């Protein structure tokens, strides 16, 4: 077993250890054992930093890959298949190493931050335990080498997110939010699960490498539609987890959780897992699938941005911006800008975490005030927060010299290239939406910065009545009953909350990633993460000959250093000869589109910022008046495009109604049938019971008449009278006789 593998296993298990310790013993430990969590995460980070160093810095090889697996479930000698095992395994390549370092780092910082932020909460210990299990599952996703284990950890992050969103479960809003998050994710997951099943049912394995090898070898028996479906279904997992349209609704509500959790799970890591997963399965995505993905990403980016501009809750603005940025990443993957998307994933993780922690600091300082309308003028009181927050904002907005600029620009360039490569038309919608969202991003971030840090404090403007409303965060927090008078004494947060801000802000600057502030492609990241050649090309229509040349030469370079090249390079090369021309084309187009993208995006960003300035700094346009002017649009945005209402009206109400109907059906119809049968039996019994009373009478009358007796006697014949019985006896004998007699005659 490779030493890195052993290390990574340790890294994986350390947070679990922290969970186990804290969940059982936190009340017995001093300080509820928060130091355990921080210490363990520190160790984990140190180890993963070492892994990062070895993989990225020392062996500077894009094709680096070590893997290890073991048999988890052995299904024995399966008829028709032979020996069948379900394996679990770990793979470490550049992407893993980077994600490993990123996840552990942010998790560590959040742990540290939480020691200040969550201090005094009555479930303090449990909180750190939950952080532990989350980190464990997240690392699991990062390290998995097969679909099955990814699915497992996928669900586990869902669980930990469920637990952490509902950490203040006394609040109904929190309880609702956690349920909503879990269910929305479940919807995504069943899609993902079906996608996994499609691939498994063909190859009876979950392992990435084996599936890709089989696909490359053309062993996929079903039609291409199935393959596209598989890709899209797998992508559904990402839609749920990364809050893509139309399953984005849960993420904003997830802000009910503690702010550090929002930073860790709902900004930096878990939501990015979706993107990571799509990157992992990138090679099985057919062009059709990629188109859908690209459009979904674009729509998400745009929609979220439009919503973000009208939100007042500081965290909700950030939440929607997260959705928007995730949209960018998905868009990037969709258009084939593989490394750019992942690059944006990493950069976004850092500056968005920084923003969330900053907002946390603000909320903390403001004693759990979250509404930006009642903030303002904080820069004097909290310089550190102000500085870091602003830097992260610039990165998010994508101004030059920031990490965000490079990554976003790379994606947009890819979008343009994609559009041109696909021959323009409707495909230009994607870059257009991207650029427009960039502008909106700049606008709402500018708005936020202004509302929070500049101007005068507006705390006194706040209407007092919604102090204890549900929207009011942490209403059950132990230290919340001093809100009114505490509002004035705003002060900078303590060191253990400040340090993370600084570190994360530092990581949002360009030189961390690339020497050239204008081109991320020259940085180590883009070099280390390169687009793997698709394995589904052979399922496409054969390309025209002149493209073939490009494709082959392209794949020659990529075939060697692809993640697959380990054992199946021969296969992948041979067919990628006629497959990868599309990627190549896009790559070329993107290179061409690089500088146009820079210009356009910079202009867009400046537009956005200046617009924000016009509205909020120089007050040339009064936002409220504008809102009145375009009220429908304003409400549309404010109410998040009414998605919640729509879903509530359709799916949720729908299933409740159906369930009520079925349950009624169950108790009344199905059961009714059963009881009905029983009843009929009893009624037959009743009929039989009164057999003597009525039928016998009839026969009696008949027989008696046939023996020519008087009606007076007839009336007297009643059941319970032996003579009736005799008559009956004779009637039967006679009846039989007649019956057989006739049978004899005829």
């Amino acid at each position: 077993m490779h030493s890195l593998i052993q290390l990574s296993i340790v890294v994986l298990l350390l947070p679990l250890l922290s969970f186990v310790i804290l969940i059982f013993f936190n009340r017995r430990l001093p300080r509820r054992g928060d130091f355990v969590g921080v210490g363990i995460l520190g160790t984990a980070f140190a180890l993963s930093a070492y892994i990062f160093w070895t993989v990225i810095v020392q062996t500077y090889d894009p094709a680096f890959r070590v893997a290890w697996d073991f048999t988890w479930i052995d299904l024995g000698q399966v008829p028709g298949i032979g020996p069948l095992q379900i394996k679990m395994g770990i793979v470490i390549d550049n992407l893993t190493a980077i994600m490993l370092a990123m996840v552990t780092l942010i998790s560590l910082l959040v742990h540290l931050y939480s020691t200040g932020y969550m201090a005094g909460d009555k479930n303090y210990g449990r909180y750190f335990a939950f952080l532990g299990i989350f980190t464990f599952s997240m690392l699991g996703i990062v390290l998995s080498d097969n679909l099955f284990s990814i699915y497992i950890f996928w669900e586990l992050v869902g669980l930990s997110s469920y637990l952490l969103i509902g950490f203040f479960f006394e609040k109904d809003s929190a309880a609702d939010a956690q349920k909503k998050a879990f269910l929305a994710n479940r919807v995504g997951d069943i899609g993902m699960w079906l996608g996994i099943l499609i691939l498994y049912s063909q190859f009876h394995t979950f392992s990435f490498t084996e599936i890709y090898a089989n696909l490359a070898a053309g062993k996929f028996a079903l039609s291409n539609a199935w393959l596209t479906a598989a890709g899209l279904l797998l992508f559904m997992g990402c839609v749920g987890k990364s809050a893509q349209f139309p399953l984005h609704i849960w993420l904003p509500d997830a802000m009910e959780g503690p702010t550090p959790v929002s930073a860790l799970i709902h900004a930096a890591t878990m939501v990015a897992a979706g993107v990571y997963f799509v990157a992992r399965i990138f090679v099985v995505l057919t062009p059709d699938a990629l188109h859908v993905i690209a459009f979904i990403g674009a729509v998400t980016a745009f929609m979220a941005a439009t919503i973000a501009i009208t939100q007042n809750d500081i965290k909700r603005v950030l939440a929607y911006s997260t959705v928007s940025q995730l949209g960018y990443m998905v868009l990037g993957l969709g258009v084939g800008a593989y490394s750019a998307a992942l690059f944006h994933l990493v950069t976004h993780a850092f500056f968005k975490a920084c923003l969330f922690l900053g907002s946390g600091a603000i909320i903390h300082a403001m004693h759990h005030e979250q509404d930006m309308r009642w903030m303002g003028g904080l820069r004097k009181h909290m310089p550190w927060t102000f500085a870091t927050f602003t830097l992260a904002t610039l990165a998010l907005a994508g101004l030059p010299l920031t990490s965000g600029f490079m990554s976003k620009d790379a994606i947009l360039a890819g979008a343009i290239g994609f559009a041109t490569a696909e021959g323009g038309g409707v495909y230009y919608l994607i870059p257009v939406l991207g650029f427009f969202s960039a502008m909106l991003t700049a606008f709402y971030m500018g708005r936020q910065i202004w509302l929070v840090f500049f101007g005068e404090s507006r705390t006194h403007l706040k209407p007092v009545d919604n102090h204890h409303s549900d929207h009011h965060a942490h209403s059950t927090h132990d230290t919340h009953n001093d809100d009114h008078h505490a509002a004035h004494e705003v002060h900078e947060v303590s060191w253990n909350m400040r340090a993370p801000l600084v570190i994360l802000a530092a990581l949002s600057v360009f030189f961390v990633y690339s020497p050239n502030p204008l081109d991320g492609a020259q940085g180590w990241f883009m070099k280390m993460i390169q687009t793997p050649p698709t394995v589904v090309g052979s399922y496409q229509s054969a390309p025209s000959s002149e493209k073939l040349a490009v494709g082959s030469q392209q794949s020659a370079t990529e075939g060697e250093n692809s993640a697959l090249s380990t054992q199946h390079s021969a296969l992948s090369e041979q067919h990628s000869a006629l497959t990868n021309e599309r990627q190549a084309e896009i790559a070329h187009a993107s290179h061409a589109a690089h500088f146009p993208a820079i210009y356009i995006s910079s202009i867009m960003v400046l537009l956005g910022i200046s617009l924000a300035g016009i509205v909020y700094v120089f007050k040339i346009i009064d936002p409220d008046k504008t809102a009145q002017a375009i009220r429908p649009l304003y409400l549309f945005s404010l109410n998040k495009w009414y998605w919640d209402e729509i879903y509530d009206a359709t799916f949720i109400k729908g299933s409740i109604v159906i369930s009520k109907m079925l349950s009624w059906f169950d108790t009344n119809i199905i059961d009714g049938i059963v009881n009905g049968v029983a009843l009929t039996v009893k009624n037959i019994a009743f009929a039989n019971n009164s057999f003597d009373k009525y039928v016998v009478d009839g026969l009696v009358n008949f027989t008696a008449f046939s023996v020519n007796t008087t009606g007076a006697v007839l009336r007297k014949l009643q059941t319970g009278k032996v003579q009736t019985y005799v008559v009956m006896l004779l009637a039967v004998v006679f009846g039989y006789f007649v019956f057989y007699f006739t049978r004899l005659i005829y």
Partner: protein
Amino acid sequence: MFELPSGAEIQSIIASLKLSVEFFIPEIYLSLLFMLLIVVDLVAKGKKNNLLSITTLLGLAGTMYFIFRQQSMPAGELFFGMYVLDEFAIFFKYFFVLSGILAVIITMADEQFESEVKSMGEYYALVVAMVIGMIMMASSADMMMIFLSMELVSFSAFILTGYFKRNPRSSEAALKYLVYGGVSSGLMVYGFSLIYGLTAETNLINISSALSQHGYDPVVLILATLLVLAGFGYKIGAVPFHFWAPDVYEGAPTPVTAYLSVASKAAGFALLMRFFYIAVPHGGPVYEDIIGINWVSLLIIISVASMIYGNVVALWQKNVKRLLAYSSIAHAGYLLLGIIVMDAFGTQATLLYLLSYFLMNFGAFYVVILIANKTGSENLEDYRGLGKKMPLAGAALTVFLISLVGLPPTFGFIGKLMIFSALLTKGSLYLWLALIGIMTSVISLYYYMLIPLNMYLRESPSSEQKNMNPGLLPNIIMAALMFLTIYFGLFFQPLADFAKYGSTLFGLKH
């Protein structure tokens, strides 16, 4: 017109009579016991001690010995073919003597006799007389003998039914029984006369040969058969000849009810089997039309009617005795299933079912009597909460009822198993019959379970704590019956072999 027999002939007649007598010892012995009982009754006038009952028990027990000795004797005809001795007869001899014994036992347990009648007088004598009659029914091979024995049984039964002279229900039952029985036996005799007219024979074996040799007028034969069937049907209490049964069973003293529902029904079946197996010519597959009239279809109709009618009407009964009466009608239907198969396996199944029915029905009635002794009622409502007050009785009754339903691990289940197996050996021909049997037995579960339902699931309205313990001896007997019901449900080998032994009839050509 008839010339007198010569001396030599008379000699030979006497010789053969003497010969036959050796094979007739159990009957003779029982007749002696009958007279002895009357004498004893005269001696112990008025005094209500157990002298009579004990004597009866010992006497009947003694009979077993003679019957046992007959097992070693060769099967054959006695008294010029009037009477046969074969395994079939021996099986039923055991059966009837045992049921006589049980009848006496449960009579001893019934306290109603103290209140209703001054002296047991000829009661036990009549029980014995009935045993004799039934034994002869099972062994007679001649219509004349059949008639005689049947009337012997019937008359004793009439008197036993009306034994509670001052009890209107008892007397009413006796009257109904008398009239109905009289008419149906009368019809049967008329049918006999017609058969005699057709064949000039009264011996079953000769009848069958005569019928198959000389042929016959179908219409007359149909009429005759139907009339005969009326007589038999009345004995086995099968629909549509059942109308007397509910009233008589309800009105008669409970021990008599039990006795009738088991023993006299069994006697009827013995007769039915012998008549249909022997007298009906067996040409080719039995279930094809043999003599213009499809006997089996006739029996099928009767049995289906009995199963359905008995079970569904029982659903509405509130009186336990009446409920058991209807259940006995239903069981007649199940028993007929075994006869319909018309082969050795079917006979064996029927006999085994009779054994199981004997055990569980006597058991059920015994418990009913013990409960009636304490509560003085046989109504379903008055069974509420008895499960706690009389745990053993409750458990025993439940076991007997479960056995009547035919659930394992009870003897009743084995009976049903054999019957259905016999049906299915004919392939899918009789499957639908088996289905009806199954269905109706599911229905029967409902009304049988009404009794445990009342005993266990419901609380008794009156909570007075009087001693409900039926006493040591009854408890032992009850437990013994219960144990046997379960034991034979698990290890039925001996009884099944016994039934197999009993399933060979003299003169039956399979």
